[in-house]
């Protein structure tokens, strides 16, 4: 059990770290996927340990994967539009919405 949790924690923090440090929008998006996947692992692991007869955790994971796919496509569409505007996908260049 604890191995699952260790794996998911490690993935989660790698994701958060990537999100905070990397300047490339695509990489940041990949980091978010990592965070989501770590959550999925948690769901599956807890479902298996706590309620072996039920399948809710599994279904929830499938939902998350589907939503993540949709979210990724939207995010990439936004990124493409941004790229068309400023020919760059560096997150630090996108600071027009400030005071």
């Amino acid at each position, binding site marked *: 059990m604890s191995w699952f949790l260790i794996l998911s924690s490690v993935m989660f923090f790698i994701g958060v770290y990537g999100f905070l440090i990397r300047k490339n929008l695509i990489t940041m998006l990949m980091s978010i996927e990592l965070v989501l996947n770590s959550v999925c692992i948690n769901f599956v692991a807890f479902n298996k340990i706590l309620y072996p007869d039920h399948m809710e955790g599994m279904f929830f994971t499938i939902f998350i994967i589907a939503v993540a796919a949709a979210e990724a496509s939207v995010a990439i569409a936004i990124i493409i539009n941004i790229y068309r505007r400023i020919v760059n996908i560096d997150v630090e260049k*996108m600071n027009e*919405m400030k*005071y």
Partner: protein
Amino acid sequence: MFDFSYTVWIVLIPFFVFVFLGFWGNRFKPVVSGIIGTSGLFLSWILSIFTAYQYFFVVAKPGEVFQQIIGYNTLWLRLTDKLHIDMGVLLDPISVMMLIVVTTVSFMVHLYSVGYMKGEKGFERFFSILSLFTFAMLGLVVATNIFQMYIFWELVGVSSYLLIGFYYTRDTAVAASKKAFIVTRFADLGFLIGILLLSYFTGTFDFITLTSPTGPAIATPPAVTFLGLSVLTWSMIFIFMGGAGKSAMFPLHIWLPDAMEGPTPVSALIHAATMVVAGVYLVARLFPIYVTVPPALEVVAWVGAFSSLFAAVIACTQYDIKRVLAYSTMSQIGYMMLALGVSGMGGHDGLGYMASMFHLFTHAFFKALLFLCAGAIIHAVHSNYMYEMGGLRKHLPVTHITFLTACLAIAGIPPFAGFFSKDEILVAAFHHNTALFTMEYIVAGLTAFYMFRLYYVIFWGEERTYHHTPHEAPKVMTIPLIFLALGSIFTGFIPFSRLVTSDRQPFGIETEWIVAIPSILIALVGIGIATVMYRKKTALPRKFASALKGFYQTTYNKFYVDELYLFIARRIIFNYISRPIAWFDRHIVDGSMNGISYVTNQASERIRGFQSGQLQQYALVFVSGAVILALLFIYLWT
């Protein structure tokens, strides 16, 4: 019992006409909206006449007390079980009489306006507001309770404002409309205070309950006193203040002469025949209460008498024909107020009440006629100033005859209508108070003088050079003139003492020749002097004016009442009241608000650096917050 519930349509038809013309009037040719407005009023007029016939001759038995009938009633606004405001139609002799007056004059004025306003910009606007006014006035006269009356009272004021300012491109018209609205509004403040006092101490708005001899106001008057007068007296005086404002009584009369900036048919309808008598009607409506509080009634009598004398003197020196008529209106309304003020309750004591209503009725006819004639004259010569007219009797034969009829009626020459009603007023004053009687007696002479001054200068005298030859008005304008002239001749023969009395019980009167003959004589003297001075162009008027130079100037400038108002408003109110209040507003009220906004502004100036636009900075703050919260939860859990 006859069902009077259809009477609500008398009031509602003009309202629907107003809405219809207001929204869709500009889709038709102007004359079509004129015809719609006029035919709407025609229906109301027919219904009113039918109602009067039913009320006075079919429902009532001869010689009996006329009942007060609630023709229609609906709950309009229910605040609590006890406090609710109704809307309805109350039929009693004075309201039925007023229905006739308002619808007749309004119908005539509508008809006349179709000709008079032809080609004016805003023709359909004129008709829709005219209908709004008629609706408001009818709602006022049939009010079942004092609150309904107040609502329609204000509505009348608004439509008067809109009509005075009809030529809104003219600065003087705009100023006049504002003046009229502000002055009457100020007076209505008194009315409102009066209503609140009265209804607070009696617990009802309803006219029938208020004025019944066993009602809370008369049988058990509240015992509260203030400055030596009972609270009932105060409330009646305050209510009279509202009435005085609407009826242009001194010192709240200043708006009426300026209101002549409106189109002439409006002056005829609103500022001569109907709206300005609303104050008289209000006092008459609450008359049973006024009788129980003599001090308030004294106020009514003296204000009325003084106003009538004051206005009659001013009218003798004015040059603008509409202004002369405006002051004459004020003077005649003073008569009506005086008559109410000297009246008692019941039977022959109530002669003044009957005379006041009688004069209101006849005055509506001849004063509307005078204004409509003035309109026809102005239409013909394009000027308001009487010295730019002269010798018009050949060019305007119908107007000439009808104007003469109205002059004779207002001067009180028998058998014209004004004689009968004015005579009753003089009789009532004669039996009550010699000083008041003397004042009114002088006013009768002055009235004859200034009316015939106007008549001679306009229709006799030498011809002027006009822009084009003056021509008689079209048929649609002369027919109302002729109708009203017939009214001015014959309404004097209506036996008012059998129909409209203070206790609604008929009584018999006979002409008291001891009063009537001198009043005819003084009217003839007034006419005689006017004939000598103005029949032909002589030097006499100028000699008189220069002999009485100071007095003449004062009178010509309307006794400087306007200037006095301006002085009070500018010097005293502005300097000593408005300025400190404005200072307080700017520095204390606004100051505290500005202080709050300054503090907010500074604070946001300090913290705006957080909003850097750097996404990852935000994320870092968010993550560290989440981590701190997580650590906190873990720490608290264990």
